[in-house]
């Protein structure tokens, strides 16, 4: 079963008097449980692709299905709801809420959902922090954590809602190679243990070995899968 289905996806950006064609007709299916890497040089369109799949950007033309929902026709409110329940994000610069502790950052999406009791939220978030090896840092603020630790917190936050899909845009770009590899190993573990679909973009060939599948993108077109 495919968690993501993309058909003839294009994305154009106006830039002054010209138009930038970021994506030029992408067709792809991403099966559930994938650990996929989108590879390409800077400006190739990989971030744009992830943004559209992650429902933070809209397509110019084409169709994108996440789960069974066609996302190109959804309203802002519906897209937000979809992101909250179905999609986890891991950003390049470890975007955590700076005023919340590691544990509170993990709790954040669950509190937004507002479906679990405070105790359950705390319990579930602690389990995730334990899984990423940071339970003993639960009270630390992001500024008190290293880059790798912050990215682990981001992974725990992305997974705490049990999403169908986790998107990671160059998650190791700002980490040293050792820390970067530990993050990728963690994603690999989570994929294996939980069956969560991971899609991450990178232009670092060193990290490709952690992906089950690799998609190359160049000038807004897929080169192979």
């Amino acid at each position, binding site marked *: 079963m495919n968690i993501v289905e993309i058909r003839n996806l294009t994305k154009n950006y106006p830039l002054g008097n010209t138009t930038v064609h970021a994506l030029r007709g992408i067709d792809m299916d991403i099966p559930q449980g994938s650990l996929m890497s989108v590879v390409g040089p800077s400006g190739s369109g990989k971030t744009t692709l992830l943004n559209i799949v992650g429902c933070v950007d809209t397509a110019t033309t084409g169709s994108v299905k996440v789960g069974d929902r066609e996302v190109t026709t959804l309203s802002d409110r519906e897209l937000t709801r979809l*992101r909250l329940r179905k999609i986890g994000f891991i950003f390049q*610069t470890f975007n955590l809420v*700076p*005023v919340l502790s590691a544990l509170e950052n993990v709790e954040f999406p669950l509190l*937004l959902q507002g479906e679990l009791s405070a105790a359950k939220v705390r319990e579930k978030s602690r389990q995730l922090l334990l899984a990423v090896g940071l339970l003993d840092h639960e009270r630390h603020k992001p500024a008190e954590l290293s880059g790798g630790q912050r990215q682990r917190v981001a992974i725990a*936050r992305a997974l705490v809602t049990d999403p169908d899909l986790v998107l990671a845009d160059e998650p190791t770009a700002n980490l040293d190679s050792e820390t970067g590899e530990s993050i990728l190993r963690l994603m690999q573990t989570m994929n294996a243990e939980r069956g969560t679909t991971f899609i991450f973009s990178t232009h670092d060939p060193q990290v490709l070995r952690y992906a089950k599948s690799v998609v190359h993108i160049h000038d807004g077109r897929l080169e192979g899968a």
Partner: protein
Amino acid sequence: MLIWRLAWRNLWRHRGRSVVVGGILFMGALLLTFGNGVVSGMERGLQRQVVESFTGDVVVASNKQVDDNVFISMMGKEVEPLYRISEIQGAVDSQAWVEASLPIGKNMTIALHESEGNPGYLFLLGVDFKKWQKFFPQAFQIQGGKFPEPGEAGLVLPSGANKELFQTMGQTFLPEGVTDTLLLPQEARRLSLKTVRHEMVLMGFSNSMSTSDLRMKISGVGRFRALNTIWGHFALTDIESYRTVQGYLRQDEKAVQLSSDQQNVMASDNLDALLADGGVSNSAATTSVAKAIVPTDTGKGSDPVWNLMLVRLKGEGADRGAARLDSLFKTHHLPARALPWHKAVGVIGSLAMLIRGALLGFVGLLFVVAGIVIANTLAMSAMERTTEIGMMRAVGATRWFIAKLMMAETTMLALLFGGIGVLLGAVLVAVTPHLGIQTGNDLLQMVYGGEVFHPLLRPQDLVMCFFELGLVVALASLYPMQLAASITPLDAIARE
């Protein structure tokens, strides 16, 4: 709970910005509270200085009275006679929201110079002294002499009138037996007490030509406790003398048989002879002349004629009270109309309203400026936090959540800094009267709420301060809220 926790920590994290916005809110709240205190003090002062000292809440005049300004009209424009006072007063007093009423006479008089010299002018109030003192118990301070007893004729001169009469007539007045020269106008104190006069000849000043002149003894001198420069132009006299001067005679007083002497006087067209010593000898004689000369057709049965009726209300505002009385008069077909006090005192009321409006305008302007600065600072803050807000949106925070977060931050600042500002403003208002800041200027007395600067904060004023503060904060937050809520996850990603 999550929002408040985030808001509080964000404020702490951005301490510098919080202090800037909080400082503006603090100053705004402080000035707003103090400004409201001044306005309230002024309102209470006006209440005390005008309503409780001179006019009452509502002034009832004849329905033929065209001008609203019945007290301080230029050149003493005549105030129409008010008839059927018994019926009017009965109807007014029967209202549960009316505390008391007091008919008075009010018109212009001329103080005649008894030798060569210019006459002086006075606003004359004809009153029943006992009732007037009961109605305005703290209004007038007798400094020399006394109020006339019931049935006694006499004139009470405020210091302002005495001073003006000296300037125009070159004559000064004190009651018989009073020798304190400090009661004389400052410029007149060097004069011998022998030149001080104890009587004054008044002549009515009206369009009807039915007025008469009357020699009156000076019973007392003193001062109005509030706004003496303004109210000091009004001399008080007993109502019978007032009616005589104005020529207000009842029907049954019109038909008078003249003696031969009186007929001789009538035949004389030599006014100077009448005004010379002995020409106007005493009030009784003059009354006879007045009755005989041109009795004004003021007679409506045996009801005495007045000009105005002052009404004090309880639990009812002046404007609404006047409107209700007007309605009452129409229902009962009474020849009267009601004026709220601020209309009846003409420019004084307008000035009071103007000062009040200016103070409120100042406070309003202050908050507009504060609101703009706060809105701008918050908007800048929202833009600076694009990455953080965009990330929250990416993980599922709705626009409404972001808007609420911004509002919570501003609310906390307002409660903390604005609350301190309001409390400090209240303390300042409470302390200020004890500083004893005084003024003798009548205009400033209106602002000060009396001779001593006395701002005032009632519980409802404090509630109003918090309400106004909340309103400004809410309005100032609208644009930053909208700006923050419009930040998308893509904006955050684009910043990376």
